[in-house]
């Protein structure tokens, strides 16, 4: 194996397909990363400002060149404003995804969204009651209509605080109130963030960053949380189900359709179509043994969580999966879809289809999905994918898939524990489990693919720390076998005992990237049961291979919710030592948690273990020296 391929990814399928890509002259994300080197140091440090047209400006980090932008903003202000805008973009992305689900719920309630229905009426009633909507004497559709309306109000300007903040422990809400960072409206916080970073508005780097935390919280306890809850109501609350992962999930003798993106609104309809009898018969008539739907990225995670749909790969695999020549159609919605995919697909027979009115891509056909036409649009696309099966050229599926179990919603985890968090709390108290860590986030060509996720998860479970993960991190650890039924063997003795008793793997798949809110809810359940704050729990977050603005928003709402969070790649902040110190030290006195940056997962694991033991000590639980 060529060393270059092994240096780019730890995955066997990735290495073999990189070789195939080179043979097929397909340019990949890694090639483009190398073409970009060296990357601009001003931008990497957050010291370039493109906010207004008196600029663009940059600050000389060596202190001899310009120290202020044309407007007079210094390094602290410029770095803070840039970070704030990243968080605003991340929060906007998750929250707009949430808004799309409200629209579907509303149209279901009004009978305009054929194909969609309420699949978890019990959860509908539960969430509605949190919004003060009584279910007495109302049918589900009426409740849905009122819930959709109430959630739309969370997006607006009329509320003083987001409804779902009530899920957070009382002490956490007091912290937010004390520093004025309890989010009021989901869109309002993003709009205010953009306003405050306009030239000549907020020029105090501390108050800017506090608003960034409020904006991030409007994502975590607002937009993303609504997205997750409504996805459960519309498509079912996840339950553990067997699945398979890596490029080996593609089937040589079946029609392969891949869904890519984030919102289950599209992929669920494609799944429905793939399981319809007449289309299966059509597939057989074309010589295919069936229709094989698989996912990449987070819409794949949505299907995996709820229906056990197989997962072909995470972010850096999205181009490589096309080089198998086995994908008859890739259907995308939005977020993290590289605009290069159409070019890659052009080398094979793969048909590429974009579906969202807000996301278009070069080299893709655009077939718009709306709640009222989605079921039919999905059927039409699946039919065309089947017809494309006969156009296949050479197919190369180089590996066998790895088995995994997914589907660990908070409801499922508590259910497995007998309906109460008490067994988990007992295990934490006794030290059988030292703590819990959420590993989240993306892939990034700066980090050898999956090395950060897999190494960190391995070291944590070996040391009796339960890992919950989402997004591309969850796919990485699944590919590495940590979610197989017998994966408890890889855990330390305490965690192994608990996992074996419950029949669960030591690394629990909690969903897509909006589903990070499941981790917030679980942390709140634990904190409430212990009568304490999230920041006192022996827990941590990590994003070992993050790349996106959404990941910055997630990291910021984790920290603002009291969760110590370790990042792998460096955010563009080193241009201001003040901002670096606030994020890595100063926030401790504000929200009781900080960021840390450590690209080496071995060292990140040590830092997290130390943090967990300190928190155990703080709670008066038996602690170890790390």
């Amino acid at each position, binding site marked *: 194996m060529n*060393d270059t391929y*092994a*240096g780019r990814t*730890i995955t066997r399928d990735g290495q073999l397909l990189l070789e195939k890509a080179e043979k097929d002259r397909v340019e990949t994300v890694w090639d483009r990363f190398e073409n970009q*080197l*060296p*990357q*601009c*140091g*001003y*931008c*990497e*440090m957050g010291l*370039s400002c493109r906010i207004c047209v008196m600029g663009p400006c*940059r600050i*000389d*980090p*060596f*202190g*001899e*060149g*310009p120290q202020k932008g044309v407007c007079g903003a210094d*390094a602290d202000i410029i770095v803070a404003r840039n970070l704030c805008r990243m968080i605003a973009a991340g929060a906007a992305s998750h929250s707009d995804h949430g808004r799309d689900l409200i629209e579907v719920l509303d149209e279901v309630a009004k009978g305009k969204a054929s194909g969609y229905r309420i699949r978890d009426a019990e959860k509908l009633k539960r969430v509605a009651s949190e919004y003060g909507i009584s279910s007495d004497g109302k049918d589900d559709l009426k409740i849905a209509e009122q819930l959709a309306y109430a959630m739309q109000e969370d997006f607006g300007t009329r509320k003083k605080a987001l409804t779902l903040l009530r899920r957070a422990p009382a002490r956490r809400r007091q912290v937010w109130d004390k520093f004025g960072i309890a989010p009021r409206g989901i869109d309002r916080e993003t709009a205010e963030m953009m306003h405050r970073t306009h030239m000549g508005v907020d020029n105090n780097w501390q108050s800017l960053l506090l608003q960034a935390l409020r904006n991030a919280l409007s994502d975590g306890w607002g937009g993303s949380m609504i997205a997750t809850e409504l996805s459960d109501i519309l498509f079912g609350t996840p339950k553990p189900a067997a699945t398979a992962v890596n490029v080996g999930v593609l089937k040589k003798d079946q029609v392969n359709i891949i869904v890519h993106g984030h919102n289950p609104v599209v992929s669920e309809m494609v799944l429905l179509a793939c399981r319809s009898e007449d289309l299966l018969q059509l597939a057989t008539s074309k010589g295919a043994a069936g229709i094989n739907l698989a996912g990449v990225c987070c819409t794949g995670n949505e299907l995996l969580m709820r229906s056990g749909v197989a997962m072909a790969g995470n972010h850096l695999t999205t181009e490589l999966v096309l080089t198998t020549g086995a994908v008859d159609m890739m259907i995308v919605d939005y977020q993290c879809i590289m605009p290069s995919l159409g070019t890659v697909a052009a080398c094979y027979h793969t048909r590429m289809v974009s579906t969202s009115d807000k996301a278009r891509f070069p080299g893709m056909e655009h077939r718009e999905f709306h709640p009222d036409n989605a079921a039919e649009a999905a059927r039409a696309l699946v039919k065309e994918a089947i017809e494309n099966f006969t156009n296949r050229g050479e197919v190369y599926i180089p590996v066998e898939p790895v088995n995994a179990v997914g589907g660990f919603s908070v409801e499922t985890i508590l259910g497995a524990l007998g309906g109460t968090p008490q067994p988990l709390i007992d295990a934490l108290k006794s030290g059988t489990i030292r703590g819990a860590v959420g590993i989240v986030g993306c892939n990034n060509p*700066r*980090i*050898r693919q999956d*090395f*950060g996720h897999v*190494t960190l998860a391995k070291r944590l479970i070996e040391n009796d720390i339960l890992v919950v993960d989402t997004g591309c991190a969850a796919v990485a650890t699944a590919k590495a076998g940590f979610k197989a039924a017998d994966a408890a063997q890889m855990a330390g003795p305490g965690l192994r005992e608990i996992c074996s008793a419950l029949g669960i793997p030591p690394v629990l798949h909690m969903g897509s990237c909006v589903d990070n809110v499941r981790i917030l809810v679980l942390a709140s359940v634990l904190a409430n049961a212990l009568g304490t704050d999230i920041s006192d729990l022996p827990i941590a977050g990590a994003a070992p291979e993050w790349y996106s603005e959404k990941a910055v928003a997630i990291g910021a709402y984790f920290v603002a919710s009291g969760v110590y969070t370790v990042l*792998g*790649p*460096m955010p563009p902040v*080193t*241009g*201001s*030592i003040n901002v*670096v110190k606030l994020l890595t030290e100063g926030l401790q006195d504000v929200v009781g948690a900080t960021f840390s*940056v450590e*690209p*080496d*997962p071995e060292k990140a694991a040590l830092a997290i273990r130390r943090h967990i033991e300190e928190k155990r000590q703080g709670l008066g639980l038996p602690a170890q020296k790390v």
Partner: protein
Amino acid sequence: MKKVIVHPERCVGCMQCMPACAAAHSRSRKLFAAILESPVPKPRIHVGVGLCHEGFPNRCRHCDPAPCLLACLPGAIFRDEELDTVLIDPDKCINCASCAMACPFGVIRYHEDCHAPPGKVVAVKCDNCFERQEKGLIPACVEVCKVNALTFEEPGAALKRKTDEVARSVSLGVSQAELPAGSPRFALLIGHKRKELHVGQP
């Protein structure tokens, strides 16, 4: 005589010197207009990638004796003594690449250029922006470099400054000596990238 001096430890890899150089050698001398010209102007300074993905602005050193000049059979390459600059006459150039083979720094490229006969591919390299200097301007790459990785100064003054820096480091002792790059902020970034690059490599 003032010269362009490269301070590699300060290069942040923004590559702004490259488009500035290309625009300075275009017909219009303006970046926005230059990208619409034919032939599209190309830079004479090239930012390379170091081991930690840091940048290095690579440009003609105007060597003396200059290996490219000695290798140029048609005599297209000559030294302008007054400017202390090695120049290429595009009319005499025969595009044989001998100069590139001789150049130890790889800074000679071959393409069409607005200063050459139309349609003719010629050897192109840094000319120390002599046209700008005649107008009292400093070389374009130096003007655009805000971190002083490229400076235009008397070599003696630059060497004295460096000598003084070393002297200060010695008197401060190793523990308190300033970081070579002189910026804790840049050092933090480069330190992180160095770690990132080696994480998990086979």
